[in-house]
């Protein structure tokens, strides 16, 4: 399809911006060293912390790095965790 925006040079990301965003994400993984294992470590710790407050579905849990599109056409990198809750523990009256 004819892309009007592209024709006028708008809406098309500059290739250097794409390079930069791709590099940033790949370096997050590189710097974390063996990234799947690193993510597993984070996952285990998150389970530990949350488990003292609520019962969670460990099998259904998903934690990953992802790129979140921003309003200005750039991306930011985020650690996204999806943690299904089975039951909230009754810790008695709130101390807060």
């Amino acid at each position, binding site marked *: 399809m004819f892309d009007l925006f592209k024709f006028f*040079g708008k809406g098309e990301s*500059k*290739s*250097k*911006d794409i*390079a*930069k965003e*791709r*590099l*940033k994400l*790949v*370096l997050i993984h*590189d*710097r974390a060293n063996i990234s799947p294992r690193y993510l597993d470590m984070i996952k285990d710790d998150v389970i530990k912390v949350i488990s003292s407050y609520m019962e969670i579905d460990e099998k259904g849990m998903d934690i990953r790095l992802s790129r979140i599109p921003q309003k200005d056409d750039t991306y930011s990198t985020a650690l996204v965790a999806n943690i299904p809750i089975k039951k909230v523990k009754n810790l008695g009256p709130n101390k807060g």
Partner: protein
Amino acid sequence: MGEVIVITSGKGGVGKTTTTANIGTALALAGKRVVLVDADIGLRNLDVVMGLENRIVYDLVDVVEKVCRLKQALIRDKRFESLYLLPAAQTKDKNAVSPQQMQELCEQLKEEFDFVLIDCPAGIEQGFKNAIAGADKAAVVTVPEVSAVRDADRIIGLLSANDIDESKLIINRLRIDMVKRGDMMDIDDTLDILGIDLLGVVPDDERVVISTNRGEPAVTDDNSLAGQAYRNIARRLMGENIPIMDMETDEGFLAKIKRFFNANRKRA
């Protein structure tokens, strides 16, 4: 007591050897006593870039194995006062030298020279470990492309893991025309990603190829923009505060007109 600087990059082909030859020559031209050490054993190239390939008798491995004395293996560059080359061995492999031996060699060279520049092989294996073993600081060379920047990041991490905390970046072969179009990462983009200090920026310059063809470092060419960039890097290494040069000043008249028309065409 001099200092040992390793010129490294991770990725091959980004210009480590050319950078070593040019910074070394520029330092020597400024009156410093300089030795260039080719640590790329088995793939020696610094000799041919410097135009000294016909003068090799002994090499780095001969020195380490005590076949000859250090002084016998050093090739004096007759064109530049106080510039020497210690060539790599071509017929041995990287395991012919150990990090311990390289460290001792660097200690010895530091006694005699103001600057010991080590041309590191590509990769992160034994050759890299040898090359950085005796280094006080590092110059990490990259080009503004994803593969080279990624490898530079890895190298910066490995250098700091080996207690070389002073790593500075040289951005090589920057193309101003592409940066202007938004098709090449600029200086700030690259520094933002790698998070280390800048030692210098060398513009892409065909005169570097021409001078290397002749075996003469580009710093001796007054018309070379890259040569000027290398001279600036040398002065920064000597402790002077030299700003990054404006690479647009030398844009030709024709190129300016062309750019003017191109810009207008886009707007229309």
